[in-house]
């Protein structure tokens, strides 16, 4: 068992890189690794609760909740999130809110890091 930290910066809906990050996280957990995900930039929109899951529409909430249940630790950049008009009570339960130092600490402690830049 090893640790993987993924930094996810691209937007949520329709973004292939965002979709890739979540699928990779799921695959890594299924192989017994410990995964943490940091959301920054436009990816922080994905921590807003009550997303309607449309069939052919890439969406975060359903997949994020599944990853939470699998033990993936997730944190959103508080500054980026409130900058986009999303307040903490509106967030998906179980996703942490913190500043960049959370991500840096995870990077420092991880065996592997994948940083997926934004748009």
């Amino acid at each position: 068992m090893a640790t993987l930290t993924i930094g996810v910066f691209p937007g949520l809906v329709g973004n292939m890189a965002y979709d890739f990050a979540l699928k990779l996280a799921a695959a890594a957990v299924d192989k017994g690794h410990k995964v943490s995900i940091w959301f920054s930039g436009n990816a922080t929109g994905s921590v807003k609760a009550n997303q309607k899951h449309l069939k052919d529409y890439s969406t975060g909430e359903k997949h994020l909740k599944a990853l939470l249940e699998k033990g993936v630790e997730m944190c959103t950049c508080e500054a980026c999130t409130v900058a986009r008009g999303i307040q903490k009570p509106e967030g998906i339960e179980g996703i942490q809110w913190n500043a960049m130092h959370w991500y840096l600490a995870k990077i420092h402690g991880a065996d592997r890091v994948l940083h997926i830049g934004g748009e």
Partner: protein
Amino acid sequence: MKLGVFVSDYTITVDTLDRLKAEKLGIILVANGVYHATIKENGKTSPLLDKTPNLYVLSEDLQTRGIAESDVDKRVKVVNYGDVVDLIFNEYEKTAWL
């Protein structure tokens, strides 16, 4: 350093890769980057495929684009998400995302 580079777009040219110095370079084609493994322009394959012998393409992203594995350049190994996890942990200590 063993570096695994995720190429997620078809428009990415090789000059970025030319600047990366790695003891072992792996190129992992995902999202629209999978077209590097299948498309020929003016009869030539993508110059990315000449950068390293360690070439991989994500099967799920081939399938979503209707690309058959038989259309993939023989130099490129078809992998799934589980294989990508193994590549990250076992083959490449650093990763980059292009």
